[in-house]
């Protein structure tokens, strides 16, 4: 099959929804998932209702894809949740929820898709980090820590998977206007934008631009990298 097969997590809304439509537009087969149903209807789109931290459900999804298409070219681990709160006021149940979705979900998708990619000796994995980690933003200890774990996973899997011709990279977006940040007070947002080198909100196509670079055939020498938007760095 010469059509590209892309798996994207968290596709019901936000960045994941945008990326689904963007890559369907490029004639890819896109398989998405989220906890709730998606209203995206497209002949090349397939949706799975699952929680990314549900290991069994993820195994089933990846097996189904492997049977149907025999390969996964690209995996975009976009599903993620945030928690913005002072640490003294953060219950452990929230910490658990954030880590389950962001870290466990990313890991299990990397592992399962990684097996299919390894068999085909090709794959590109893109994970989602955040500028909150390098900027050490107050109120985001849990969220930033979970994304920091994703950075470690990205860099180490890059090594472990390199013999299979699989690259593993991450993108670290600045704030982009989605539901994820809609409840953050404006002053907080403004001070955040001021910490960036380029002081504006990110746009959806800032994300797809970086992903296009990571998945490009020519990027087979690029792995274990985290690209932050807006000029942010450690």
């Amino acid at each position: 099959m010469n059509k590209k097969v892309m798996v994207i997590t968290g596709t019901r809304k936000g960045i994941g929804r945008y990326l689904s439509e963007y890559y369907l537009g490029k004639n890819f087969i896109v398989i998405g998932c989220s906890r709730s149903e998606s209203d995206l209807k497209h002949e090349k789109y397939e949706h799975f209702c699952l929680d990314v931290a549900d290991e069994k459900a993820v195994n089933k999804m990846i097996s189904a894809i492997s049977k149907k298409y025999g390969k996964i070219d690209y995996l975009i681990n976009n599903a993620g949740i945030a928690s913005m709160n002072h640490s003294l006021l953060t219950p452990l149940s929230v910490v658990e929820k954030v880590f389950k979705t962001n870290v466990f979900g990313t890991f299990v998708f990397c592992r399962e898709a990684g097996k299919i990619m390894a068999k085909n000796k090709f794959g590109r994995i893109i994970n989602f980090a955040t500028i909150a980690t390098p900027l050490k933003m107050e109120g985001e200890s849990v969220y930033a820590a979970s994304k920091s774990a994703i950075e470690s996973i990205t860099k180490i899997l890059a090594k472990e998977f390199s013999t299979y011709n699989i690259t593993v990279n991450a993108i670290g977006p600045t704030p982009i206007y989605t539901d994820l940040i809609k409840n953050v007070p404006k002053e907080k947002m403004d001070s955040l934008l001021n910490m960036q080198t380029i002081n504006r909100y990110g746009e959806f196509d800032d994300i797809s631009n970086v992903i296009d670079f990571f998945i490009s055939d020519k990027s087979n020498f690029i792995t274990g990298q985290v690209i932050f938007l807006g000029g942010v760095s450690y």
Partner: protein
Amino acid sequence: MEKHRIKEILNKTVNEYFESQDFNEKANEDTVLFGKESVLDSMGLVNVIIDIESRFLDEDYEISLTSEKAMSRRNSPFRTISTLADFIGEQVTENEEIDE
């Protein structure tokens, strides 16, 4: 699924891996897969495990060799083809019971 069928699949998968690596070996149930005496290095074992999982999937058996059960046993189920067949046998039976 019968035990001898499981062993058959394992032998075939491991032999294919040996061939792909130009190893002059033939797999049988005593072939050591894991540990000092194994002909496989750690990456070789990972590759074989991936192949085995996908081979069973082709037969419509979803097995997972990365389970905590497998990692926590004193005697690794990956030691030989025979021990691995027993371990897979347990999972296959569990799945068959769920389907009924």
